[in-house]
């Protein structure tokens, strides 16, 4: 049984006629101990999907309009408040983008980690366990560091504290929402390395939300690419990153600057990332797609399994113009 299974998830912002669909029919599945990378640009719905897993979206304005989120077999969207609190932190933990803003500025970091223990493993809510967790995430001198306030730590150290706090209740799933975006390049590398090492050591599954395709390749087993509220391509990371099939994935990968190439024009995707509420009809990528045909603006294409374990939302994925 998969640890996490999202079926046909639909999330709106606002009600009735004013409702804007931010997530439209997302389906994902994650086995225990595996890592799934969820990739997309701003407004793609990747973070909204991630927050929905523990029902962390503020309602209103968000509305869970349809679908199921099965976490260890139970539908999160149907849980009562008390059950939800058990799941949050206990079964699924979060690491967020801005570690500085995600730690409460007025409490010592040791206390904040201990709180996570008190909520889910009260028997282990001791200084010794806090120190063990801080050591686990590579914080030097944890005995004195646990008495620090968040602002006294660097961004990298703050993110390590966030990870320690997330791991304290021994969750089965860690959702990392852009965990390195706010950090410096050399610190990014440290955090990704730490996550990879912890996954091996502790055996939890990771859902990694990122806009950075390079990071996905470092750590993920599978990748799902989102665009304008939908998954447009999904498959094993190694295969997908070497041989992207959807025109968006292809264009996105080409527009990432690399060190290898000499100074030359970058390949771009024309136009702007569509705003919520202004998603195009038919295939949502068609106005920016280099190989779009007239029919692309008409019928919305389905997400189809075109090869074993390779899902693509483009009926023309196999056409010669795309293979070039």
């Amino acid at each position, binding site marked *: 049984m998969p640890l996490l299974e999202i079926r046909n998830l639909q999330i709106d912002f606002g009600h009735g006629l004013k409702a804007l669909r931010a997530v439209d029919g997302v389906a994902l599945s994650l086995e225990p101990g595996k890592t799934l990378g969820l990739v997309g640009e701003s407004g793609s719905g990747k973070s909204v999907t991630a927050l929905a897993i523990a029902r962390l979206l503020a309602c209103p304005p968000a509305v869970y309009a349809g679908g199921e989120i099965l976490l260890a077999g139970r539908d999160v969207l149907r849980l009562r408040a008390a059950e939800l609190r058990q799941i949050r932190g206990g079964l699924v933990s979060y690491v967020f983008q801005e570690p500085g803003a995600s730690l409460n500025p007025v409490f010592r970091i040791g206390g904040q980690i201990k709180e996570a223990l008190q909520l889910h493993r009260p028997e282990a809510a001791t200084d010794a366990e806090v120190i063990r967790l801080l050591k686990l995430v590579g914080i030097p001198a944890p005995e004195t560091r646990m008495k620090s306030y968040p602002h006294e730590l660097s961004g990298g150290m703050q993110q390590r504290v966030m990870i320690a706090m997330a791991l304290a209740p021994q969750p089965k799933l860690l959702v990392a929402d852009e965990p390195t975006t706010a950090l410096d390049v050399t610190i990014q590398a440290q955090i990704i390395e730490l996550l990879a090492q912890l996954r091996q050591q502790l055996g939890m599954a990771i859902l990694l939300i990122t806009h950075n395709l390079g990071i996905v390749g470092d750590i993920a087993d599978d990748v799902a690419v989102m665009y304008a509220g939908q998954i447009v391509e999904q498959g094993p990371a190694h295969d997908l990153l070497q041989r992207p099939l959807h025109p968006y994935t292809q264009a996105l990968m080409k527009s990432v600057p*690399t060190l290898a190439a000499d100074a030359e024009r970058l390949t771009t995707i024309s136009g702007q990332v569509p705003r919520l509420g202004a998603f195009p009809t038919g295939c949502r990528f068609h106005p920016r797609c280099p190989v779009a045909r007239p029919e692309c603006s008409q019928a919305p294409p389905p997400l189809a399994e075109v090869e074993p374990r390779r899902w693509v939302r483009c009926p023309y994925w196999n056409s010669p113009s795309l293979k070039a």
Partner: protein
Amino acid sequence: MTMSESLLEVKALKVHFPVNVGLFARPTEFVRAVDDVSFTIAPGETVGLVGESGCGKTTLGRAVIRLIEPTGGQILFDGMDLVPLKGAALRAQRRKFQMIFQDPFASLNPRAKVENIIGEALDIHRLVLNATARRQRVESLLQDVGLEAAHAQRYPHEFSGGQRQRIGIARALAVQPKLIVCDEPVSALDVSVQAQIVNLLRDLQQEHGMAYLFVAHDLAVVRHISRRILVMYLGRIVESGEARSVCQSPRHPYTQALISAVPVVDPKLKRRRMVLAGDVPSPIHPPAGCPFHPRCPVAEARCKTEVPALREVESGHWVSCHLAK
């Protein structure tokens, strides 16, 4: 490169900020944000300035065009030293250098129409004679940066991040500067839009011939646009040279780590990553000797005591490391 060839020549520039100012006492400690930095930019050239947060690259970029007061050193622009200039004399020089900011949301006045955001600089430097000329100039600038003339009548909030950055570029272009300092111009943008802006900057340079000082933390982006690259660490330049040379055969261990930390998409090209230990130290109390030694994987005893000088290890390729060959 001889003196006459360079548009900008920065010599031993220092920017120190006081901390812990006492009641009567003089400031006791300084953040050495920029410490003894020298470099040149030729007309029409792009020089990339790379480093992590807190390394002083933004301060350096701003100090070069006198948005921040330098503590010492010289900034020769077209042969004239900008450091002693004040008031009207400095303002007269300002139209020669402009800046593009990181945050396209915060750097445009939300209550001003695009026409006035771009037109303000034209007014200040009296570059247009009348309202018609002003409107025509603004419209042609908008077209230069890939927007439409009709956009002049709109407000910043009606645009996406990428479009806003285009407005910022048009504003900088308006006065036909010789140098534009680009401070992280694409780091707040989506990947697919980043590439558009980088290409636009290249095209505009070919057309108008201004030089760029391109400040960024993303080495791959900098590599794409720059002819030469400066790598900064704790207020100092630790390596500089031709972009290809710096990226393909980095000599400083810090540059090597930066390069290995650049995420690579294609799994076939994956290589062993060199992960640096620890954080960037405080620029108030930089380590003795080589400022990089506490994080350096190959540091020796003398690295802890002797400050390495920038030396030319290859034609045009400078490194400040005792061990670099």
